[in-house]
């Protein structure tokens, strides 16, 4: 049994909450007392099924106003997998919330209303999925019951979306027709659409392959915490604790410590009280290296044969998440894995319209929920990978040092200078 994290994208009107409620309900992940609670609140009832959307509305303000404030996380499992759903709201602050929810997702389910086809917001959801390079995309055409379960409606949407997927260079997309309200093709295959021969949504989610995405990449180990007991029996113990971001480390590997550039070999790998020969992402381990070095939190241990870029000026896509605008010349704190360094925004190169992909060059300010490509300079050299090649090791955040708020999500890029 392994773990799949996914995000659902769609507005309230697309039936997103109903879809999530249906997955939880049909996989028997809803407890009876929770069902009774929503049945008490449920004003409308469709054919004996309670209003499943109510299952995902968490806070009082949301229930009162019928809105969703923030990303919520839902859990269910089958015998094959544990699933974590990031449930991001469909309207206000959409970009900020969707980027947040998608940042840890392996897969996105994009909901399209069968009556409306590929809409402007479908485009926006897909553009964000392409910016974050989500490895798996499922397009679920919902409300098929409202179009008479007609195959030509579904086929038309598949054709229209295929063009968008090509334009955005999305990974191969899987399409399926569903009705979240009626339960068609959610857990069980639908009896209403014999023309569709593929798996149900849950079957798809169970079968998606997660193997080898991150293990095949160059190995990266950001040092998180140094364990030095300094007791008599463990006088010389000095272990570098952290989580492997990508790739695999083995005892004996030749490694380089960045930013110092010192080279050595892996002497031991520990996990709990166990000694390992090999460890791979995303394991949390303790590495020991041969010889004595001054290694501390924020340093990076990498194979000597696969070094990342080390530079102080770089370009990055930034999704802006603060009400105070982003301006050229502003200073922030960059948090990149376990490393923090002051940065200054050298230039705003272009604003990327997440509805159209249009680029507006050299904008003078960037507002909340906008995406910009910016040039930044770091106070100390940064050893990093491009986000497009290595998600786990190419992402960073910006922190406003006066408010301490997290204000920007960065997908790092290098560029020939």
């Amino acid at each position, binding site marked *: 049994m392994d773990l799949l994290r996914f995000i659902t994208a769609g507005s309230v009107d697309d039936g997103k909450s109903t879809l999530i409620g249906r997955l939880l309900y049909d996989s028997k992940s809803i*407890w009876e007392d*929770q069902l009774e609670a929503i049945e008490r609140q449920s004003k409308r009832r469709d054919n004996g099924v309670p209003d499943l959307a109510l299952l995902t509305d*968490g806070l009082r303000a949301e229930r009162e106003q019928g809105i969703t*404030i923030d990303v919520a996380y839902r859990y269910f499992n089958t015998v094959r997998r544990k699933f974590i759903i990031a449930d991001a709201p469909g309207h206000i602050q959409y970009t900020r919330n969707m980027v947040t929810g998608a940042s840890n997702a392996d897969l996105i389910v994009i909901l399209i209303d069968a009556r409306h086809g590929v809409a402007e917001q479908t485009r926006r959801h897909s553009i964000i999925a392409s910016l974050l390079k989500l490895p798996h995309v499922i397009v679920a055409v919902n409300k098929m019951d409202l179009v008479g379960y007609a195959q030509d409606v579904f086929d038309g949407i598949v054709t229209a979306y295929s063009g968008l997927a090509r334009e955005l260079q999305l990974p191969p997309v899987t399409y399926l027709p569903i009705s979240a309200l009626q339960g068609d093709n959610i857990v069980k295959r639908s009896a209403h659409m014999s023309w569709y021969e593929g798996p149900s949504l849950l079957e798809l989610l169970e079968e998606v392959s997660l193997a080898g995405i991150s293990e095949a990449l160059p190995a990266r180990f950001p040092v*998180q915490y140094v*364990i030095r007991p300094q007791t008599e029996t463990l006088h010389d113990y000095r272990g570098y*604790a952290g989580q492997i971001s990508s790739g695999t480390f083995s005892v004996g590997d030749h490694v380089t410590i960045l930013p110092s550039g010192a080279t050595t070999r892996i002497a031991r790998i520990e996990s709990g009280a166990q000694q390992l020969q090999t460890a791979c992402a995303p394991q*949390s381990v303790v590495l020991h290296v041969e010889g004595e070095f001054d290694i501390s939190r924020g340093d990076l241990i990498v194979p000597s044969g696969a070094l990342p870029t080390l530079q102080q000026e770089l370009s990055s896509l930034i999704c802006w998440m603060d009400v105070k605008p982003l301006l050229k010349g502003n200073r922030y704190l960059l948090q990149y894995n376990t490393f923090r360094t002051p940065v200054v925004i050298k230039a705003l190169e272009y604003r990327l319209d997440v509805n159209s992909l249009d680029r507006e060059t050299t904008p003078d300010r960037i507002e909340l929920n906008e995406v910009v490509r910016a040039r930044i300079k770091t106070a100390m050299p940064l050893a990093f990978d491009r986000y497009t090649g290595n998600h786990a090791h190419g992402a960073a955040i910006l922190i406003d040092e006066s408010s301490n708020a997290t204000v920007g999500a960065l997908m790092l890029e290098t560029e020939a200078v």
Partner: protein
Amino acid sequence: MPRDYLDTLESEAIYILRETAAQFERPALLFSGGKDSITLVHLALKAFRPGRLPFPLVHIDTGHNFPEALAFRDRLAVALGEQLIVRYVEDTIQSKNLQDGTGKFASRNALQTHTLLDTVSEFAFDACIGGARRDEEKARAKERIFSVRDEFGQWNPKLQRPELWQLYNGRIHKGENVRVFPISNWTELDVWRYLEREQIALPSIYFAHERDVIEYESQLIAVSPFIRLDPSDQITRRRVRYRTVGDMTCTAAVASEAATIADIIGEIACTRISERGETRIDDRVSEAAMEDRKKNGYF
């Protein structure tokens, strides 16, 4: 190589614990002797051994705890050689002249928050690690892993920081502190399966035992000096276990024959009622009971 999901959850929790130790000056691990905080201690040992834990274990003792859980707490702290700090709600009631709970199941749930906040300021803790899970309750589903609180411990759901990738921002202003939830992404069943896999010891009350109980609104409440018995109460001796361990006044037992964790997992797989719904009297007050308590500084 597909990894077992418990390995993934364990690795994430260890990462969060190490982030907490690295980013804060004075963290603490809130330890009650319940299964979730026992799981946290086990994860902390994996994160920091052979070194010492970089934080003390802290318990806010309401005075209504199960004696078995308290004895377990003390034994574990001694066995590990780690520091245990205990602060008593009773002392807060005396020193601040607070009104104790009244009624049949007099709860010290709200009073507990006073003692917790006093303890946070007494030791200047800037981060408190807790065993809360997002599957427990609807308000918890929206809480961050690093959850910033003001000096009144208040949670403001509208002003949470976005939490992206595995980048946790623990920067705070003086007077603020952060509640850290390393097992946010675990469900009740995940915790039980992990306890089983890792062969982690638990207080005896988690397993089936004989106990005098009364039945109240179809829940089984242990007879103890902390609840008021009325003439209409029928005391019966039943075979029960606890699914969660909170105060004796607000935690209900469930009928059970489970002698091992495997038996418990089997029973949970068959039950159709949530952990809090089956065993917590305090969540039943209103639809938003948990949300309100969190906004006022509760975990």
